[in-house]
């Protein structure tokens, strides 16, 4: 009998209940999309941030030790270098495909013709290389420093003396793109840099001349040498295993070691880099890892907020619809009370109708939300969003809360519904 009444009521109030279902569907679809994106966004943002600079620095062992002990790069200390010829080996490690870009660096000071000394850094801007595996690969600062603003043009390898000059330094030297700067090489001969562009990136490059690696090697008398490589790699977020391995790979059991080695943790990639580049130390760049975390937290907070707001507004929508519906049906519901229905049984009847509509809306919303999630995934991250099953129980709880909250005002007016007033013969 109960279900017969529910069925009758549902059929008769089809339109209104449909609106309830639609409202619920709207709220749930947004929540579904946001929650799924939120759970998946960790990896996505991680990948996005790879476009944002290096996350592993490779230096020579001794340079690294000196820096650790004395906390400074002492230019006067006897320096150890890496071999430029080893760089290609980066693309031979197990995680080669996770290595997106890298660029070598050789830093030093040069005397200008005018007598003042400036910092120079030699690097690749857009360097084509043939890998030991036979593959072809282009990399350099242009692939790594997406946030660099260059006024003028990037230097080309076909013009070995073309350079970028940091904005701050350019002001000091009063130079602009197209100008030349003459300097004195280590061997005493003079040479010239031609300014292709001015760079501002907010880092040490603003005070430097960023030149091409061969030119700097020649100027400093360090042919074939580099002092560091910045590597950008796609990594899996760190976990307990990764942290233990980073502290000491030898502390792992064989099985753990295998799992770690075959997972793209930043520490295992760094470890593999050390294996292929002689005399090297590869370190994760902590600063970027931390800012990644912060951006992630903020993105997820934002999505959580959207979820909560969309569910709240859906709740208010449901509340309005249900209240209007109860008002309209007050005669019928009063009649039920008059023929002996208790408050509780009338409330249960009405709640059943609402929950049925809500359930249908919820399922429809979930399906639509998965679609939204994919649209967001492709629009924002250019890839699909993984569907997370954990979202379903969360949504069920939220749906129940939403329907109960939404029904609250209606239930109140139901309890206050007086059969005598409703049925009074006027």
């Amino acid at each position, binding site marked *: *009998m*109960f279900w*017969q*009444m529910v069925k*009758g*009521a549902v*059929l*008769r109030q089809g339109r209104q209940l449909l609106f309830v279902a639609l409202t619920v569907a709207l709220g749930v679809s947004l929540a579904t999309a946001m929650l799924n994106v939120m759970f998946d966004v960790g990896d996505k943002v991680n990948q996005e941030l790879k476009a944002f600079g290096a996350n592993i620095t490779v230096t020579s062992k001794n340079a690294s030790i000196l820096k650790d002990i004395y906390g400074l790069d002492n230019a006067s200390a006897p320096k150890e270098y890496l071999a430029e010829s080893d760089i290609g080996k980066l693309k031979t490690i197990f995680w080669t495909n996770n290595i997106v870009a890298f660029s070598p660096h050789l830093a030093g000071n040069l005397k200008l013709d005018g007598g003042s000394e400036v910092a120079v850094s030699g690097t690749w801007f857009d360097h084509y290389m043939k890998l030991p595996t036979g593959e072809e690969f282009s990399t350099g600062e242009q692939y790594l420093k997406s946030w660099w603003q260059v006024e003028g043009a990037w230097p080309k390898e076909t013009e070995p003396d073309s350079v970028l000059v940091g904005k701050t330094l350019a002001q000091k030297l009063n130079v602009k793109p197209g100008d030349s700067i003459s300097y004195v090489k280590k061997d005493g001969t003079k040479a010239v840099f031609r300014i292709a562009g001015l760079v501002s990136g907010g880092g040490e490059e603003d005070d430097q001349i960023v030149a091409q690696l061969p030119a700097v090697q020649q100027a400093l008398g360090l042919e074939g040498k580099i002092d560091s490589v910045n590597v950008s790699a796609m990594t899996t977020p760190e976990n307990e295993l990764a942290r233990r391995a980073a502290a000491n790979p030898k502390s792992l059991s064989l099985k753990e070691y295998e799992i770690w080695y075959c997972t793209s943790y930043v520490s295992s990639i760094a470890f593999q880099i050390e294996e292929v580049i002689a005399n090297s130390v590869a370190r994760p760049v902590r600063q970027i890892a931390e800012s990644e975390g912060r951006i992630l937290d903020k993105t997820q907070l934002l999505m959580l907020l959207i979820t909560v707001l969309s569910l709240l507004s859906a709740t208010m929508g449901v509340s309005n619809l249900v209240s209007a519906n109860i008002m309209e049906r007050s*005669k*019928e519901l009063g*009649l*039920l*009370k*008059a*023929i*002996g*229905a*208790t*408050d509780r*049984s009338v409330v249960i009847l009405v709640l059943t109708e609402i929950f049925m509509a809500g359930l249908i809306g919820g399922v429809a919303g979930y399906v639509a939300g998965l679609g939204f999630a994919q649209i967001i995934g492709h629009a924002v991250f250019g890839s699909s969003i993984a569907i997370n099953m954990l979202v379903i129980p969360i949504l069920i709880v939220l749906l129940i809360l939403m329907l109960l909250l939404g029904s609250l005002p209606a239930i109140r007016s139901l309890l206050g519904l*007086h*059969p*005598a007033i409703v*049925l*009074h*013969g*006027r």
Partner: protein
Amino acid sequence: MSLLKLTDVAMVYGGRVTALEHVNLTVEKGDWLAIMGPSGSGKTTLMNIIGCMDKHTAGQVVLDGIDLNEVTKNELTQIRRDKIGMVFQQFHLIPYLTAVENLMVAQYYHSIPDRKEAMAALERVGLADRADHLPSELSGGEQQRVCIARALINYPVLILADEPTGNLDEKNEKLVMDLFRELNREGHTIITVTHSDKVGQAAKRIVIIEHGHLRDA
């Protein structure tokens, strides 16, 4: 002991509108009482109090041995369900349920729905062949007879009918009144409210209500 006894009952709506005052009334088992009076005199108010739909504001109402002053709102619902059969002027059937289902709803809230018994009740009011029709597919007279069948379905001790023929034509009025006559002959206690003399005369006893005061005819 009388089935119903009202002693000095008053009903004041919202502390301002006095709808009933000093009402004394006794109804015995098997009685048929007609309450007559002009519109707005308090007839429906009185019916609602007797029918446990509303609580009086002063005096004493004893129904089938129960003092209504001493019961909670929930118990009042229970008493209404167990002891009262109601027939309203505007029929009041649930629009999306068939005739027989409308009877079964009353059974459902009372105990358990029993289709056979509901069919028997429809048969009793001569509507067995209309059992599966929706209220909108029934004439006014037929709807009212369904209501009477519903009022009977849970074996009430008292049947209340508020202007049961108010919305009916003469032919249907006669059908409904014949039904009440039959029910009373079988021993049912009935109170009808009406402002039609003809309907009033059918009862065994008539009381007049004017401005919330009751007097014998």
